[in-house]
């Protein structure tokens, strides 16, 4: 009969009719301890089951792309550090390389190797932060402190190198800003020497832990097909079984010199993403170990003028940031200021897969899934 109470709820892209009495809408964030910043998620719940979601973003929007049009190429470089602020070095690398490509300058090998080392350390730091917070979201209170202990070592290396810990602005267009400090190699080697054991420590707490496995296996499954359609990149894509890493596909910096594996998952669930990132840390360590043994000597800055006026044209360059493909699309009009800088933020695009991943799961899985995508809102919102 007509009395069945129904309500129409609007989801992005679909209209669903649900029984009114069963549905509640819950608003997670923007002030919520596990939305990793100011993400706001509107969840449509049936009991505790998620039947739809909508991410509301933009709370951290600063108009980075607009700012770029009003700054010279060099001036804009520090701004990119503020996007993915837990992986500032990677942001800087992407931007510098994109501008170098636009300028068509060659970076000296020494600079390339140092860049590689720092970027890989940054990847480790970013993954450590991810691991700590992700585990915390799932209720393991301890790993975050272990992770921060190691991350601190990396940040100290950054601090010694360029004076900044978080928003480092470590590179300069054309090469490096600073020569490495005395003892850089030793510091990095010391860190890498027992980092392997430290990863074992984290894994001992989590990998075979029954509760961890139950909480992550089969949660937030993203098939390879969906992942590609949604443009997902980085560890999330690899955990779905697509063996694709820009460091191998379009080698940049000095990655073509080193041996490393691309870890791939098979189920595309939260557990696989966890395993992929853990393995990535080991591979990063491997890259660093190879690189630190053999830093070529020579200049650290290529031939770039004080005033950069790239020839008119456009370039797209992307790197494998810790979160995925970080791309810069820069249009030059021949002046010292970019005509347009478009940043392809991996977090933003990966976050779009959230809705696909979360449907049918429980509220408790929502935080696991937000955590597993590894977003940084500074980058999502720019």
């Amino acid at each position, binding site marked *: 009969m007509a009395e069945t109470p129904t309500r129409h709820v609007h989801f992005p892209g679909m209209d669903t009719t649900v029984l009114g009495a069963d549905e509640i809408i819950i608003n997670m964030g923007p002030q919520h301890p596990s939305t990793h910043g100011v993400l706001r998620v509107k969840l449509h719940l049936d009991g505790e089951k998620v039947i739809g979601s909508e991410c509301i973003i933009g709370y951290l*929007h600063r108009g980075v792309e607009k700012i770029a049009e009003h700054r010279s190429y060099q001036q804009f470089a520090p701004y990119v550090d503020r996007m993915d602020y837990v992986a500032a070095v990677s942001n800087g690398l992407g931007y510098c390389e994109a501008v170098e490509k636009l300028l068509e300058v060659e970076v000296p090998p020494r600079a390339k190797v140092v860049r590689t080392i720092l970027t890989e350390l940054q990847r480790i730091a970013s993954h450590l932060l991810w691991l700590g917070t992700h585990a915390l979201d799932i209720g393991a209170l301890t790993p975050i402190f272990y992770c921060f202990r190691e991350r601190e070592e990396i940040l100290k290396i950054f601090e010694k190198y360029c004076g900044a810990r978080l928003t480092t602005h470590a590179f300069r267009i054309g090469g490096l800003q600073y020569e490495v400090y005395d003892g850089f190699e030793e510091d990095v080697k010391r860190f890498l020497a027992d980092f392997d054991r430290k990863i074992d420590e984290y894994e001992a707490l989590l990998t075979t832990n029954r509760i961890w496995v139950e909480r992550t296996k089969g949660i937030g499954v993203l098939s390879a097909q969906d992942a*590609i*359609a949604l*443009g997902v990149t980085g560890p999330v894509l690899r955990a779905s079984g697509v063996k694709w890493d820009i460091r191998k596909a379009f080698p940049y910096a000095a990655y073509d010199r080193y041996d490393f594996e691309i870890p791939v998952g098979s189920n595309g669930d939260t557990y696989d993403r966890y395993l992929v990132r853990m393995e990535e840390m080991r591979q990063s360590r491997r890259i660093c170990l190879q690189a630190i043994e053999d830093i070529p000597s020579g200049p650290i800055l290529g031939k770039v003028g004080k005033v950069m006026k790239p020839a008119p044209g456009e370039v797209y360059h992307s790197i494998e940031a810790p979160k995925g493909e970080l791309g810069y*699309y820069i249009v030059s009009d021949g002046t*010292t200021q970019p005509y*347009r800088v*478009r940043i392809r933020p991996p977090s933003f*695009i990966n976050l779009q897969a959230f809705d696909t991943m979360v449907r049918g799961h429980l509220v408790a899985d929502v935080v696991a899934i937000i955590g597993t995508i590894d977003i940084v809102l500074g980058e999502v919102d*720019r």
Partner: protein
Amino acid sequence: MADEPTSKQPEKRPETSEGQPPARETSAQKPAEKPAGEKPVPPKKEAPPAWPKPLDNEMVRRFRQRFGDAILDALEDRKQAILVVAAERLREIAEYARDEEQFDMLTDLTAVDWPKREKRFDLVVNLYSFPRNERLRLKAAVGEHDQPPSLAPVWAAANWLERECFDMFGIRFEGHPDLRRILLPDEWVGHPLRKDYDILQQDTAWVRENLGIESGQ
């Protein structure tokens, strides 16, 4: 057959006002360093390798053969392939690129504003092919009131990217399932990444309204 489109190419280029020096617009805030002239920049730097080179390879030929006039131009810039296509047929071309040419991932979708042109926006679509390990950029000129077809049915990834594009440039995509602002609040006025959107004006307006004083900027 394959030659025909190639021969057309030079004629087409000027029409689309392809984008580099000639069409360089000046936004209000930076009058100082715009050369503004027709082609003053390339000669200044001693003969830069005039980058947008015409591109002609197997793939471009296949595209031309399939879509004929809709492929307005094929270029290469910094060794990156660019296809300039007609906006109306963008979705068809995208579908073809995905299904036949194996460009299975939409990497990025954005726009560039050229206010002086007849069709002020360049829609820029970056594609990537896993099997071929190749990138391809599709560009389509879109007028201010044009409604280019949405790519969301082709790649799910286009959903948010097009919303962002709408948010920042005000380009309305036809057939998009949920075209709303994404980064800015719904009640925002204007589209910030347009060249005529002045940040100072925005700022002073906000300060006047919310703080009741004149902004010092």
